[in-house]
């Protein structure tokens, strides 16, 4: 499969400009890249969060397709309801169109409050692609920590103080958790690698079952970065192996989609972000080393998993 930019450029945009996301916001880029790959009738489910509030302020919408938002913890079950209706209408002979279903939710709505609904929906096997735009904190409500917030990161509920330096504990590996459901397709992606992300969306949309793509998303105010550095950070996350690009099929077959020619030190990624500013101070050297060690170990574990996986 090859992504032809010329062809994509000619398509009618299904996710349009004019939304109220921040300049440089990674979520907008992700939504655009995902929607570029939609060729069949589609319904979008959007969990409460940045993407939802900025693209649906009544009476406006940035979506040229049917779209539903219902609440925060249930993006997966809401879209599963739409999909169930579609299957039923087909069984009743009242529907002929072949629909696809895509859910967008942030890490708060996916790692934390929406984990139960996500687990239930993918275990039941509904046909939908779930895209987690993962900015690693509750950015919509003002940068509070989530289960995706990395160790020692500043957030507004894990501030850097004299006693505690950012978030205690590590982030959970949700990609592995979803893969453990043995669903047809799970992947990690980054908008900085648009070709890889869009190919993954294409693969996921061909499946008559659940798929999950965890996409790292630079957040301008939450990460404390410049709008122009958004995609640069989306690339650095991958080139430091902080956010490896890989996919897991049926919970078994694991493939790393991109090996950095030269694995960059984590500081290349951290130093552009205010949320990690304290880690660059000498007094917090140990915390920085811990984070680097975690990245190194996770990367090695992933390589081992992919080498040993069934093909």
């Amino acid at each position, binding site marked *: 499969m090859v992504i032809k930019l010329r062809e994509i450029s000619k398509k009618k945009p299904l996710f349009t400009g004019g939304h109220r996301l921040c300049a440089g916001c990674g979520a907008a880029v992700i939504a655009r890249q995902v929607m570029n790959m939609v060729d069949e*009738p589609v*319904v979008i*489910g959007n969990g409460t969060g940045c993407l*939802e*509030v900025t693209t*649906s*302020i*009544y*009476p406006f*919408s940035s*979506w*040229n*397709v*049917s*779209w*539903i*938002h*219902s*609440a925060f*913890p*249930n993006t997966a*079950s*809401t*879209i*599963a*309801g*739409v*999909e*169930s*209706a*579609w*299957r*039923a*209408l087909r*069984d*009743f002979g009242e*529907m002929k*169109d072949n*629909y696809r279903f895509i859910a967008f939710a942030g890490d708060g709505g996916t790692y934390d409050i929406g984990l*139960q*609904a996500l*687990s*239930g*929906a993918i*275990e*039941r096997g509904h046909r939908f692609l779930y895209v987690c735009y993962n900015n690693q904190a509750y950015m919509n409500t003002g940068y509070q920590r989530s289960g995706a917030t990395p160790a020692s990161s500043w957030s507004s509920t894990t501030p850097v103080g004299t006693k505690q330096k950012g978030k205690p504990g590590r982030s959970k590996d949700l990609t592995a958790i979803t893969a453990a459901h043995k669903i047809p397709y799970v992947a990690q992606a980054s908008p900085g690698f648009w070709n890889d992300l869009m190919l993954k969306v294409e693969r996921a949309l061909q499946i008559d079952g659940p798929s999950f793509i965890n996409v790292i998303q630079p957040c301008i105010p939450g990460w404390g970065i410049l709008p122009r550095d958004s995609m640069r950070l989306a690339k650095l996350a991958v080139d430091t192996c902080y956010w490896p690009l890989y996919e897991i099929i049926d919970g078994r077959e694991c493939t790393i989609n991109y090996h950095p020619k030269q694995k960059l030190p984590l500081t290349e990624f951290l130093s552009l972000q205010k949320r990690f500013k304290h880690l660059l101070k000498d007094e917090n050297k140990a915390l920085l080393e811990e984070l680097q060690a975690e990245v190194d170990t996770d990367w090695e574990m992933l390589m081992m998993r992919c080498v040993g996986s069934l093909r």
Partner: protein
Amino acid sequence: MRVVAETANGAVAEAMRQIEPHVVAAYPITPQTEVVEEFAGYVSDGRVRTRFVPVESEHSAMSICVGASAAGARVITATSSQGLAYMWEMLYIASGNRLPIVMALVNRALSAPINIHCDHSDSMGARDSGWIQIYCRDAQEVYDTFIQALPIAEHEDVRLPVMVCYDGFIVSHSLARIEMMTDERVRDFIGSYKAIYPLLDRDHPVIYGPLVLYDYYMEFKRQQAEAMNRALEVVFEIGKRFGKISGRSYGLVSSYRMEDADIALAALSSTARTAEVIADELRDQGIRAGVISPRLFRPFPAKALLQALGGIKVLGVLDRADSIGAGMAPLAADIGAALQSAGSNIRLYNRVYGLGGRDLTLSDLKSFFLSLERAGQGKEMPAHFGYLGVRED
């Protein structure tokens, strides 16, 4: 028509088979469980084409219902107690999006302490959620009302979700004589479903659940309130239309021996039937007693209720849920408001009873009725509010 011996839960499952909705999403909880189990059997045997979604929680059950209904499907669910509590935020989202979902709510007490038996604290807590609420006195009413619920919910003047409430165990699990209609008659009555603004219309994309701020939010809510008001007439019309095909006509308020009554008891659901027994007994003693039972609780049928009360002097209101701290329980508060607005002189006494399935004995009921009689004659001044059938020390 066929006569069967069936529980109310079995009757709901049978009505669901006859209705054959597009989607059913539900999670098991006592005492609703049988509804889901029996219906799952119909799905497994291919007797319905319904998509049954056995979800991982009630929150997801209602989320599936919201998604499926917005997509353009006819949708049914069932729950009780904690299940309804867990659906809470989604109840408002279902009604706010004007989705005609139908729910069987088998009334059960709320934790803590945990209790599986009947009271109305689950549905009473949801009385402001924008759902139409109908309470059924017996299994026949449950079956009949469940069939009426869809045309009410889907009526173009309404487009609101409907909760059909009936007493856990007392009605849900008791075998009763039920007259059931043929499948054809049920399907004729409910008609085929015409979705309005479905998500699944590729030529007309729609948005459900946008962010609506202070510039438009209030108009949304005002329209929703207006739809609820219109439901009064629609529930009434459909109850009458149902009478034409079944011989069992329904109104907004059920009355028993109210024509010349001096005193009356008001109660929801199965307790109204128990109160009728005592009313008969008092009538034999020369006391003109009657019973009223609002069938419709949301929207509240104030006008029909005042009419039903006629010329009584004293009214006792029995509530199977308390509104702790309010000084008056939900049914009494609403009846009181209706009396006040109409400038009525009827005196109202409120008792909370039957919490967590506590049996309401005939003697408790009778002594309350008699205290109302003495109050009517000015011989006694009972407390305006209290608990009935409880250890107080």
